[in-house]
C-alpha cells in the first residue's frame, strides 16, 4: 500500500524531472580541448600545477576586497560579444590572470587601476572607473572596452594580429606595441607609445583604415569609419573589390590628407597637427593631386611585396619549420620618384631588412610634387 504524496513531494519530483530533461551545457569545446591538450602536454612531465599556482587564485581573491576591483562573469560563455553580464566576485590586487577569465567576463576598475595579464601575449590595464570584457581569446585576443580607458602592452608576435580592443563599432588592432584607448561619449581616443596600431571598423578588419605609429594619436568615431590623426600616422582608404588599398596618405609632418573616393566605404576626417587634447575633428580633405597616381603606387607596392617575400625566403636558414611574419612596411617616396626611406614595424631580422632596403631603393615611382608615404602590412612566409 502506498501513501499519497504530499504537495511538497510532488513539487520536488516535478522539479527534479524538469532539471533532468534540461539539455547539457553548450561549451566552446574547441577551446576547452585546445587548452586541455596544451595543459596536458606542458604538464606531462609534472605531477600537477605548482603549489603556488594552486594557491594563487584563492590568495588573490582573499586580498581583493580592499582594491575595489570587480570581475563579472558572463551569463552565457560561448557567445563572445554583446552579452549581458552578472557580477560574480571581487578579485585581486596584482594582475588578474587573463587566461583564467571565462570568455565574456567583464572586468571593472573602481578607484584604482587594474591589470589583466595574458601570459606571453598581452597585458592591459584599466584606468579607474573603466570596464572591459574579453570577447575573444583565440588567435586574436580581443577586449571590448565598454567605458573609460585602458592601456595595453602587447608582446610582439610573428602573427598578423594578436590583440585588439573594440569600442563600439571601432576596432583597434595591434602587432606588438603599447598604446592607450579611451572611450568617451561618442569618440574613441587612441594614443600609441610603441609600435603600430591599426584602427578600423569592427565589421571589416582585414585591412586597416588608420595606421598609428609611435608617438601618434587619433580621435575616431565609434563606428571606426571616421577619425582624425596626429603625428606619425597614415590614413589608408579602402575600396570594395579585390584590391583593398587604393590610395594612401600620411599625417606627418603635414596634417593627414585622406583621398576621398566615392566608392570607398571608409569616410576619413583629418585634423591639424596641433593641438590634440582632446583631438579635434575637422572636415574631410579632398584628394591631393600632387601625389603619385594610384596605379603607380600599386605597381610599386606589388614590386615591393614581391621583393620582400623573396628576401624573406632567400635569407632563410635551411629548416623544415614554416615561419610567417607580419610587419608594417612604410615607404616614403620623394618628389623625384625615388624611395626616400623604408621602415618596418615591428622590425624584421637584420639580414632580411638589409636585403629589402637594398632592393627597395632601386624602385622608382613616377614624379610628383609632394611625393607620398604609405604603409602596407606584409605577410611574409617561408
Amino acid at each position, binding site marked *: 500500500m502506498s501513501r499519497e504524496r504530499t504537495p511538497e513531494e510532488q513539487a520536488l519530483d*516535478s522539479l527534479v524531472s524538469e532539471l533532468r530533461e534540461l539539455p547539457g551545457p553548450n*561549451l566552446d569545446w574547441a577551446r576547452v580541448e585546445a587548452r586541455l*591538450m596544451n595543459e596536458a602536454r606542458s604538464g606531462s612531465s609534472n605531477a600537477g600545477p605548482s603549489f603556488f599556482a594552486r594557491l594563487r587564485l584563492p590568495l588573490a581573491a582573499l586580498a581583493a576586497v580592499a582594491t575595489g576591483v570587480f570581475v563579472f562573469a558572463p551569463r552565457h560563455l560561448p557567445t563572445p560579444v554583446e552579452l549581458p553580464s552578472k557580477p560574480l566576485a571581487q578579485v585581486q590586487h596584482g594582475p588578474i590572470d587573463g587566461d583564467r577569465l571565462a570568455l565574456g567576463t567583464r572586468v571593472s576598475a573602481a578607484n584604482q587601476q587594474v591589470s589583466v595579464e595574458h601570459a606571453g601575449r598581452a597585458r592591459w590595464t584599466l584606468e579607474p572607473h573603466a570596464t572591459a570584457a574579453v570577447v575573444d581569446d583565440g588567435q586574436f585576443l580581443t577586449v571590448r572596452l565598454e567605458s573609460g580607458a585602458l592601456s595595453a602592452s602587447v608582446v610582439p608576435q610573428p602573427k598578423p594580429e594578436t590583440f585588439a580592443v573594440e569600442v563600439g563599432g571601432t576596432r583597434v588592432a595591434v602587432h606588438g606595441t603599447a598604446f592607450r584607448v579611451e572611450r568617451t561619449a561618442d569618440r574613441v581616443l587612441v594614443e600609441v607609445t610603441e609600435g603600430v596600431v591599426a584602427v578600423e571598423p569592427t565589421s571589416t578588419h582585414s585591412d586597416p583604415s588608420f595606421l598609428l605609429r609611435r608617438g601618434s594619436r587619433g580621435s575616431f568615431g565609434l563606428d571606426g569609419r571616421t577619425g582624425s590623426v596626429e603625428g606619425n600616422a597614415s590614413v589608408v582608404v579602402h575600396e570594395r573589390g579585390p584590391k583593398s588599398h587604393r590610395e594612401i596618405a600620411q599625417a606627418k609632418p603635414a596634417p593627414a590628407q585622406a583621398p576621398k573616393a566615392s566608392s570607398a566605404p571608409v569616410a576619413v576626417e583629418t585634423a591639424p597637427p596641433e593641438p590634440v587634447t582632446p583631438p579635434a575633428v575637422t572636415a574631410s580633405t579632398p584628394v591631393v593631386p600632387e601625389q603619385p597616381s594610384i596605379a603607380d603606387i600599386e605597381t610599386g607596392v606589388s614590386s615591393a611585396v614581391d621583393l620582400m617575400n623573396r628576401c624573406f625566403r632567400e635569407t632563410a636558414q635551411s629548416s623544415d619549420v614554416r615561419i610567417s611574419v607580419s610587419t608594417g612596411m612604410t615607404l616614403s617616396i620623394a618628389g623625384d620618384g625615388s624611395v626616400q626611406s623604408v621602415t618596418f614595424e615591428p622590425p624584421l631580422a637584420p639580414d632580411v631588412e638589409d636585403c629589402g632596403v637594398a632592393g627597395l631603393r632601386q624602385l622608382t615611382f613616377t614624379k610628383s610634387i609632394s611625393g607620398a608615404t604609405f604603409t602596407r602590412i606584409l605577410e611574409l612566409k617561408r
Partner: protein
Amino acid sequence: MTELSELIERCKAGDGLAFREVFRCHRADVARLVQRMTGRPADLEDIVQEVFLQVYRSIKDFRGQSRFSTWLYRVTVNVVLMQRRAAKSRPVLHEAPDEAFGADGHDLPDDQVARARRVSAFYRLLDRLSDKKRAVFVLHELEGLSPSEIAKIVSAPVLTVRTRLFYARRELLALLRDEPALEVVAREVLSEVEASSSLEREST
C-alpha cells in the same frame, strides 16, 4: 578488448590522440554532471578542463575494476568538491538573476522564463545541502545512478548512500516548505501538476 579499453590502454601509454578521443567521448557527460552539481558556475569550462587533466594524470591508476564511467564520475565529483571548497574562500558579491535571458541574451517566452526561474531556484536549493548529500542526490535523482554505483563513486557503503539520499530529500522538502522564495516555485509546479492531471482525467 573493447574500443574504450583500447583507448584507455593507449592513454596509459601516453598517447595524446587517444586521450583526446576519450575527452571527446565523455566531455558532455562530465559537463552535465558538473553543471548539475554546481548550478552552472562561471568557471564551468575550467572545472571540466580540470577534470580531464586529473584523468590525464591519473589514468594509470584506473585498473578496470569498475566501469570507466564510474571512475570518471568519481574524478568529476572529487574535482567539483575541491573547487567548491576553494571557492568558499573567495568572497562572492551577488549573482544577478539571469533567468529572463536565452542563450543569445534575448528575452525568452514567459513559460521558458518561468522554467528557468524554477531551475535557478532549485539549484539554490541544492546548494544548501551539504556536499555529500548533494553529490548523492544529484547522482541518483538527476544522473539516474544506482546506490551501489554511487557508493563506488563517493567511496562510501551503500547503506550510507541510502541514508544520505533519504536525508537529502527530507531536507529539500523542508526547504521547499520553509523557504518563501521557493514557495512560489512550489505553487507553480503544483498548479502545473494539477493542470496536467486534470487534463489526463478529462481525456480518460
